[in-house]
């Protein structure tokens, strides 16, 4: 009769066994303590039962050693869980180098995925087996949360900023993809499938889609929006050169420094005055309303792809 009831989710990423081992450990520890207490409660309740209600118990007031013991032991046990769980967590948030990048936007009530090579899909996500994949996403309206149980990953999609999850699929197949943060009427309909494919099949699938790659689209936008006229690669433009800037530290006019990452680029396109690079004037107009979320992601992808220029950009003007 129990066959119909699944008790345990599939393990389909390198993170899944890590999470599951921790889960088993915590289950064992907590079950031990729970059963211990239940055992004593039952034994005492039966052994010392008094049907008359008129007797009195033994005059025991407490024991400092017992108190210390059952404070310190659980504390140490919980610290062990804490340490293990934190290690697993940092594996989850720290994506490895050289991931396959996929961009996504959540919007009531669908997920749209954009592959670098140009394919885009809705409520379906195709990924190759055995390769670390990083999905970077945001939301166009309310909070959402990208949740793939078989990979044991989840992160909220928050309007106005990027979140990401990463995973290395370890089994081909079809898995659930859920929105886990309540987002309104069709929240339970904001679901999809993740397809883990053999790498060659994935390549074939990619080829079948067509369309312009994100980098190409980003380049096109870079021209169309006129970014190119100020952000000259030799650093002589009215704006700083963007070549090789991705991932580097940039000094700001305010004296602070900032890491040039997805979020910073996005912010600089939409609210250029907010964090001005040192040495440049507040001349860039906002592109809010002129470029949508996917356009932004393409621009970021394009800027990422720019190699460092032969001549280092000089910021003295």
């Amino acid at each position: 009769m129990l066959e119909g009831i699944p008790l345990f989710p599939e393990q389909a990423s390198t993170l899944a066994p890590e999470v599951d081992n921790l889960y088993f450990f915590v289950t064992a520890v907590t079950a031990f303590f729970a059963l211990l207490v239940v055992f004593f409660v039952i034994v005492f309740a039966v052994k010392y039962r008094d049907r008359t209600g008129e007797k009195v118990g033994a005059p025991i007031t407490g024991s400092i050693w017992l108190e210390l013991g059952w404070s310190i032991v659980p504390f140490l046990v919980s610290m062990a869980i804490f340490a293990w769980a934190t290690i697993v967590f940092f594996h989850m948030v720290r994506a490895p180098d050289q991931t396959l990048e996929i961009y996504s936007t959540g919007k009531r009530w669908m997920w749209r995925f954009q592959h670098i090579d140009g394919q885009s899909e809705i409520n379906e996500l195709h990924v190759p087996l055995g390769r670390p994949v990083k999905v970077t996403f945001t939301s166009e309206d309310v909070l959402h949360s990208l949740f793939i149980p078989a990979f044991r990953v989840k992160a909220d999609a928050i309007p106005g900023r990027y979140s990401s999850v990463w995973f290395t699929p370890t089994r081909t197949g079809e898995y659930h993809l859920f929105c886990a943060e309540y987002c309104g009427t069709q929240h339970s309909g904001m679901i999809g499938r993740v397809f883990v494919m053999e790498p060659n099949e994935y390549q074939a699938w990619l080829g079948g889609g067509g369309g312009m790659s994100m980098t190409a689209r980003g380049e096109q936008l870079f021209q169309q929006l006129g970014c190119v006229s100020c952000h000259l690669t030799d650093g002589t433009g009215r704006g700083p050169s963007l070549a090789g800037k991705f991932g580097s530290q940039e000094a700001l006019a305010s004296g602070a420094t900032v890491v040039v990452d997805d979020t910073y680029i996005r912010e600089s396109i939409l609210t250029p005055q907010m964090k001005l690079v040192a040495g440049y004037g507040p001349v860039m107009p906002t592109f809010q309303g002129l470029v949508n979320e996917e356009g932004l992601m393409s621009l970021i992808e394009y800027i990422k792809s720019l190699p460092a220029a032969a001549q280092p950009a000089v910021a003295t003007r």
Partner: protein
Amino acid sequence: MPDGVAAHADPPASATGFGGAGHHPALQHHFQTLDQQHEAATLGMWIFLVTEVMFFGGLLMAYLLYRVWYPEAWSEGSLELDIIQGGVNTVVLIASSLTMALAVRAAQTGLQKATVRWLLVTMALGLTFLVIKFFEYKHKYDLNHIPGPDFEFEGPHAAQVQIFLSLYFGLTGLHALHMVVGFSLLAVMCWMAHRRRFSPEWYTPVELSGLYWHFVDIVWIFLFPLLYLVDRARQAG
């Protein structure tokens, strides 16, 4: 742990038993002595002020975060505020705190007429504050600086200035609401003092109103630099 030690040094309540003779008219039946009643009332007021601190705390947390995030917008927004009006209001409110303290002192020493007089001065100062505040709001309204669909602002960080002004109106509005409540309280106190209800043995209501009034003053002491004095140096330089 709150006053665990104090409780031993100072046994709670008095042991005179129920229904001791010679009740003060203000003694409520569930208290043993006037002292116990007074202690309970002041403790209650202090705890209430703690809740007030946390109440403003939520707004101040939002203020703090966005000030860290958007220093430029904060500077722009703050320069929109009228430092003269804000400064005058600060002086007015601190002066009202002084007169309030003097009113409580008059009640403590049994000077009923002086109590009424100082309370009236305090109310007048409170009213002055509210009137000035009204003109500040009106000015903002005329400029369409009220956050919301009709908000208009010229400047590179208009959106974030809207957050600043939202918090400005949230904080000062809540403060003004407290002023109105305090004003009404003082009116009642004035009437009670006029009816000679207070005596050096019993002036608890005046004292509690005083605590409340001082708290409202303290809130403003923080709001003034937080809202009006952001980056004035830029204006000067």
